[in-house]
């Protein structure tokens, strides 16, 4: 029953967006996240829409797949829209008992909804077009300049890749443990919330024991193969900025700087 979750959202396609350097994609998503909070009129939202639409088109990711990713966040989005609509002060256009709907409230709710919508869609393109391992390499690449400040970028990336590699193994393990405990009469599905939460202890304990044994074995295997950090370590795939990466990053950075200056100055 646990097995049918997909590991990551990554969809393989042979597209321009997939081939971008992961560092470019991470930085661009971050710039986008900050930028979308600084834009404030319809024209700019149309630009955001075009940017998102073009990126989706170029990435060849089916639109339905992206819309599906919005589903879990939908209640939160509705809550935002409703809260903003009811609790914003301003010129009332509808009034009943303690409910006040104002013009300002509707504008704010609309903008908030659209903003979150684009934010989720654009950033989810990052995980849809980049495999977790490539993402890890990208993060390592971005952290490397911080080595001067004692940030262990190599170790972080190493631990992330090991963690990702063990996710499927440990999911199998959890599944087996659940079946084994069920066979012994454990009950995970009935009772109130407190009882159900408590019932997870018999899953977690064996999971810890087996996982930590694995960690021991892995550490020994690493030692045996002479792992000693990143000194002198070479990679099979080197990350390399191409011209397209430079162009995209420059444009995103320029737009963000422009938006920040406008926010501060006007």
């Amino acid at each position, binding site marked *: 029953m646990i097995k049918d979750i997909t590991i990551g959202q990554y969809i393989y396609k042979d597209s321009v967006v997939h081939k971008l350097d992961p560092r470019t994609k991470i930085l661009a998503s971050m710039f986008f996240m900050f930028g979308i909070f600084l834009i404030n009129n319809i024209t700019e939202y149309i630009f955001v829409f075009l940017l998102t639409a073009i990126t989706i088109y170029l990435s060849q990711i089916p639109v339905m797949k992206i819309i599906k990713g919005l589903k879990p966040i939908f209640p939160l989005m509705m*809550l935002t829209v409703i809260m*903003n609509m009811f*609790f914003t002060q301003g010129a009332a256009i509808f009034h009943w008992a303690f409910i006040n709907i104002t013009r300002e409230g509707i504008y704010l709710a609309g903008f908030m909804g659209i903003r979150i919508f684009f934010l989720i869609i654009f*950033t989810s393109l*990052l995980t849809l077009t980049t495999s977790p391992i490539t993402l890890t390499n990208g993060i390592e690449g971005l952290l490397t300049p911080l080595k001067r400040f004692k940030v262990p970028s190599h*170790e972080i990336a*190493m631990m*992330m890749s090991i963690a990702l590699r063990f996710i499927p193994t440990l999911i199998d393990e959890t599944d087996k443990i659940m079946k084994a405990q069920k066979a012994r009469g454990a009950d995970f599905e009935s009772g109130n919330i407190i009882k159900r939460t408590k019932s997870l202890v018999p899953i977690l304990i064996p999971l810890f*024991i087996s996982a930590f044994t694995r960690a021991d074995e892995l550490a020994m295997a*690493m030692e045996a193969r002479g792992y000693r950090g990143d000194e002198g370590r070479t990679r099979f795939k080197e990350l390399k900025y191409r011209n397209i990466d430079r162009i995209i990053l420059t444009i995103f950075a320029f737009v963000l700087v422009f938006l920040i200056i406008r926010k501060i100055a006007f």
Partner: protein
Amino acid sequence: MDLNFKSNSKYLAEVAIIASIYVILTISLGALSFGINVPFLPIPIQLRISEALLVLVLFRKSAPAGLVLGCFIANFWSPFMMPDMIFGTLGSALAVYGIYRLKNINIFITLTPGVFFNALLVALELKIFFKIPFFWSGVAVAIGQTLVIYVLGIPLYYALKRIGFKNDYENV
């Protein structure tokens, strides 16, 4: 076997495995964890079962790093990825640090940062990105965290003690 704890690879492997457990508990037991609606509270409460792993901080030196990393990786699956990565990871880091500092006090007090910092940071995130009232989301997260950390975490803590799970802070 545990003599070489100082060595780097042992630490790396443990951190990675703890992160991995955190991730699978977050994404897979999503099926088991559930949103509950509390009367009068405008926000549904979610239980993040993986937060019960916070008790591992009291046992292993590798747990703080493992939990923070796990929280970071788990957000690869979140639809609201970037902000979750920043706020969620920061919340976990503060929680873990708080628990680490309080680890020699009564277990009930030790675990409070796990409730407090996560509620604070998540409520802040929801306030900034969704304009949802800070107080209510804070309360909702705090209730969820309290349930997981105290109802699941504390039995877990005693069970781990009972089976003699290795504790790095006790010299054996």
